[in-house]
């Protein structure tokens, strides 16, 4: 079995006439948590949306499990992944129904839903909120529900897009502490976009640095901190 879940080669994305992202090569290894870091507007979220097939690349190749991603339909592909955005984007339903949503889309049986939803609500510490209306949650609670909604799908690839940046620091710290063992124990391959290096180091083993619309460097955090590949990366890491 291939070590890499995702391999991207020569990816190019253009919006209007502007090149918004260029990636020569990027691999995401099975079971790892990879942080995609870089300043705001560098193209991090573009990469994430491309991986969720919510954005069509202008050029390049994307392999999922060793096979070209284009070989499967958007919906079939997206049912292997799960996406959590910066805002929880919960629906005006109960917490339970929100978490059951993705399973329903996949045609899961009622018994499967009844088994998995409470389990993941519990794992994220929001079991007691199951019957509450989603719009009556605090920011931290809502983001926990949003994570449960993604993790309950047991996705092959979890995509997190600045998912903690809207939370206040103490709430964020506790959530990161809770999430880390969950991702590790479930061996969920995770791609995690953030502009916060501290957050990246806490959750991820490897990092990919995107600066000025291109992927510059990928490797273990220490490697990158010790040897930034160019001045832009060094500048972003605060090592001028």
């Amino acid at each position, binding site marked *: 079995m291939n070590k890499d879940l995702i391999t991207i080669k020569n990816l190019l994305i253009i919006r209007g006439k502007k090149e918004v992202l260029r990636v020569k090569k990027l691999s995401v290894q099975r079971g790892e948590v990879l942080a995609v870091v870089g300043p705001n507007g560098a193209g991090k979220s573009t990469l994430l949306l491309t991986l*969720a097939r919510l954005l069509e690349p202008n050029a390049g190749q994307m392999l999922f499990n060793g096979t070209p991603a284009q070989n499967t339909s958007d*919906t079939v592909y*997206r049912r292997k992944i799960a*996406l959590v955005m910066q805002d929880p984007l919960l629906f005006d339903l109960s917490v339970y129904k929100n978490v059951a949503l993705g399973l329903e*889309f996949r045609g899961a049986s009622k018994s499967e839903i009844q088994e998995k939803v409470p389990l993941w609500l519990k794992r994220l510490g929001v079991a007691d909120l199951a019957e509450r209306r989603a719009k009556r949650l605090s920011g931290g609670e809502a983001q926990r529900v949003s994570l449960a909604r*993604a993790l309950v799908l047991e996705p092959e690839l979890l995509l997190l897009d600045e998912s903690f940046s809207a939370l206040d620091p103490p709430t964020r710290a506790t959530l990161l502490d809770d999430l880390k063992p969950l991702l590790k124990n479930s061996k969920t391959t995770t791609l995690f976009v953030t502009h916060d290096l501290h957050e990246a180091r806490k959750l991820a083993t490897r990092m990919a640095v995107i600066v000025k619309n291109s992927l510059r460097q990928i490797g273990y955090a220490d490697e990158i901190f010790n040897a930034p590949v160019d001045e832009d990366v060094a500048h972003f890491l605060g090592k001028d």
Partner: protein
Amino acid sequence: MSFPYEILQITILSLQISAIATGISLLIGLPLGTLLALGKFWGRSFFLSVVNTGMGLPPVVVGLFVAMMLWRSGPFGDMNLIYTPTAIIIAQTVISAPVVIGLTAAALQSLDPRLRLQLYGLGASRWQMIWALWREARLPLLAALMAGFGSVISEVGASMMVGGNIRNQTRVLTTAIVLETSKGNFEIAMALGALLLTITFLVNWALTWVQQRGED
């Protein structure tokens, strides 16, 4: 006017006609409003403007237009629809469909556009995405339905023109009110008006109850 049989018959006919017209408007308006709100195609904003203009169509103008289509001299004269309940349903559908289309589009456009990405990101197919958005917008969508019904149950100009206000055939509450007023039977006209208001209120009450169920 004979009581209470004739009034009952007129009331039932009014409700039937307006309910069917609203139902057809919903069948037309929900998909078209969704297309206008979510679709990306050339002329979308133009069509939205057309629909928004259509939301304020004067019923008599619609009545005249539909009558000209259905008169024996008109293109659909052979179908013998003029002065039938079907003719009123057609005219009322023309009146209420833009209301339902426009308010459906507005309801869906008022949702956070990122919800669509989020739904796809959770594995929704296109239809599952649309279904989830309808559910999310259920309150304004029910309001669209109520507005559509309200625009036809209270409408008189088109019903008069294409229905003909024919006794026992196409006389509805609003045209009966006009007739009783012209006869000088103001008490009966007022009573019919009160009946119309009561019915409109009850229908809206029922729909509001459905709409607000589970709200606190």
